[in-house]
């Protein structure tokens, strides 16, 4: 059902295959259900953020109006719609982590990187994301997620070590 058009060639073969796989899971004509997975793949291959061109490519590939893609991309905090650093860091600041000193961890990272939450380092290396939700690792509070990997029981030293390993 998905068709190749000039614009959808922006999507790599791998992304297109992944989208095809997702589309198959839903009844015909319900390809809108695949928008989320499609955006995740497209973002992953584009250094962690989406552009309007990429979203349009997804729209064309799924034969949906572009606005339907913009709606999803702008709603979920998992999608970035502006250029960000290539490593994404989210520090959980919800209740358990807050009680265990998450604010101090955030302040430490901000000081070390010289950027505020929601900003990326000027060299485009690290993006300190403003995480809104509890990341569901309260037993290991305070915690943070770096490129989808959880790091728990954080201390300033541990954070320094993790950050230094990010190239």
């Amino acid at each position: 059902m998905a068709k190749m058009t000039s614009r959808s060639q922006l999507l790599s073969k791998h992304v297109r295959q992944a989208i095809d796989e997702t589309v198959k899971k839903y009844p015909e004509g319900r390809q809108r259900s695949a928008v989320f997975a499609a955006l995740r793949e497209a973002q992953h291959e584009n250094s962690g953020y989406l552009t309007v061109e990429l979203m349009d490519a997804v729209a064309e590939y799924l034969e949906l109006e572009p606005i339907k893609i913009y709606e999803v991309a702008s709603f979920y905090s998992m999608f970035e719609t502006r250029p960000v650093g290539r490593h994404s860091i989210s520090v959980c600041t919800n209740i358990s982590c807050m009680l265990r000193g998450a604010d101090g961890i955030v302040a430490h990272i901000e000081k070390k990187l010289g950027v505020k939450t929601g900003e990326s380092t000027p060299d485009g290396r690290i993006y300190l994301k403003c995480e809104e939700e509890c990341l569901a690792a309260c037993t290991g509070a305070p915690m943070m997620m770096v490129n989808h990997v959880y790091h728990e029981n954080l201390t300033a030293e541990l954070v320094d070590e993790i950050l230094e390993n990010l190239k």
Partner: protein
Amino acid sequence: MTESLVNIEIDGKPIQARKGEMIMQAADREGVYIPRFCYHHKLSVAANCRMCLVEAEKVPKPLPACATPVAEGMKVFTRSPRAITAQRATMEFLLINHPLDCPICDQGGECELQDLAMGYGRDIARFAEGKRVLKDEDIGPLISTSMTRCIYCTRCVRFGMEVAGIQELGDTGRGEHSRIGTYISRSVDHELSGNVIDLCPVGALNSKPFKMHGRGWEMTQHEAIAPHDCVGSNLYGHVLRGKFMRAVPRINEAVNECWISDRDRFSYTGIYSVDRLEHPMIKDGGKWRTVDWETALEKAAQALRTVHSDAGVLASPGATTEELYLLQKLARGLGIHSIDTRLHQADFRDDDSEPLFPWLGQPIEELEKQDAVLVIGSNLRKEVPLMAHRLRKAALRGGAVMFLNPRRYELLFPVKAYVSAAVAEMSAALAAVVKAAAGRKTLPAHLKDFVSAQGPEAEHTKIATELMMGKRTTILLGHLAMQHPQYADLRALAAALADITGAQLGYISDGANSAGAWLAGAVSHRLPGGRKADIAGLNARTMFARPRRSYLLLGVEPELDCWDSPAALQALRSAQQVVVITPFVTETMQEYASVLLPGCTFGETSGTYVNAEGRWQSFAGMIKPAGEARPAWKILRVLGNLCELGGFEYVSSEEVRDELQSTLGASKPDNGFRGTRVMEAAPLCRGFQRIAELPLYGMDPLVRRATPLQQTQDADVACICLAPADAKKLGVEAHDKLTVKYNGVRIVLPVKLDASVHTGDVFLPAGLAATAGFAPWHAAVELEKA
């Protein structure tokens, strides 16, 4: 009591409601008003504004009336203390972010939020924090945005998805950052998009041309009929101090429901075009001179009196029935038989086998209930937007909507079958469908040879099968079919197909009043009431092909409106006398005319339009005509008197209408076809075959002057559209310039590529300044790289 009804009680009043319907629907039917913002009876239920919270017995919390189905024995309280408290609380939340800018808001005075805030709002806000402010997007020349006022009812978003068929507006972002818009600040282009202005319950989406021009309560409201297409949408015209300020829909479920097209909504802006003709003028020794009405009318009458039968009379199919009736009465009274309104038609063979008038074959409302519809030769969305909307509903109901067109047009609904045939192959393609449908049945003798020569393919057979299988089926001939050089063949085949399959044959007629023109006798072969003319005059094409000594034009711009516009211009320029009744004056007109009589346009005259289903819709004038302009029926009345013809003593346009109606007798519309002309193959075209579509906003003098419509994407069509293969042969790419030549005339336009255009065909629209007077609408043209 039947199974499908339940007994409920609303505010103590026992009523019966349909099983499964929502409390809101039952209450609306009973006339119990429940406040709402997001609910709209034509849209899906969103239940996101929460304004319609009501109390139901034995339910511990308030329920949204729009999303709660009725149940047997349910007792609903819409005005109980608990319901009112819930509604007031909702209102308080809605007003948290809503600005208090009613004094400068266009919606003020006709705002659902303002009205309900009067009833449910608190005098003093408890919310002392800052309000969220949004930057406005430019979404095109028709709709203004003030998104800070938006309350996120999402009616506009649902309209796009559910009614228009394409989502252009969406709800992006989340929570506090959520906003309605296009996200990338692009224009909203759908031909029905203006309806979001009416749907928006607040002042977030408003009419851009009307912005800051008036207040609802300052204006007077008048009933009107849209003057552009054969639906005849019901409108209200709003008038401020004698000036037409805006058009809004008047609900008529049978005609336009609660929608109108953007063309009907914004064309009024053309009324005040700078080229309005405000005074009668005559040409004196090659110079134009403003004169009084008496002099001008005397000169016009003189011109008409002296020519007798050697004159041509041409009127727009957008003229009122009364004007057209008087026009033919005047012409025929003077012995002029060449009178016509079929400006866009080329093929007049089989005139005599045509029906009483180009009838849709059914009420407009029936279209959406069809099981199968075949549309032949129509860019339906642009020709008659609201008919496309009806067929969209049919398709969504599961009906098979099918097309036979010279190229693919974007349709925003499921299309069961689509045959795209080169313009010269259209009759053959239709014949193939006839053959597939006929099977072993005997074909009518006059079509037999042509039809049996065809080899139906899968798509032809599919169309035939759907038409055979459906219970309620229709075959419609659109504008492109009517403009086709083999229209008579297409019609004969369509009629045969209708016969074989039991489908209803229908016509999507052009202009607002083709039906009225036929009934009034403003066609060369018919008298009022559809009687056959004893002396058939020349039709709209031949009256120019065989130039006349004089012409009388009513609301026509031949260089843009006539099928063979070069021949029309030439004939007019060499005529001795050309009397023109027109609301607008152009330079071309000043070249060929000898008398210019200022006529009226939309809103300025009373009259009647007969729509495609044969519905007579009369309207009164709303505004004073510009300058000294007069309604054409009055001009024609005086001309009749000056020419000393009897029977022109009318006091009102109603008298004219009644006289015409009395000639109709018991005649009923009937699309039965009695033609027996033997069909032959279409002649081959040398060079490129031009096809002239009439653009959405180029189809009559008024829309061509509606500035906001001319700024839309749909008006940006001055280009040469051809097949990629042909472009390659010519060595051009998209956006390159291409010269198109006809008979020594050359015009240069940018190239547009469309893979669905057949090689050898070239689409070059008519009705545009760029192609005015260029070539016949279907002509063999030459192309070369500019």
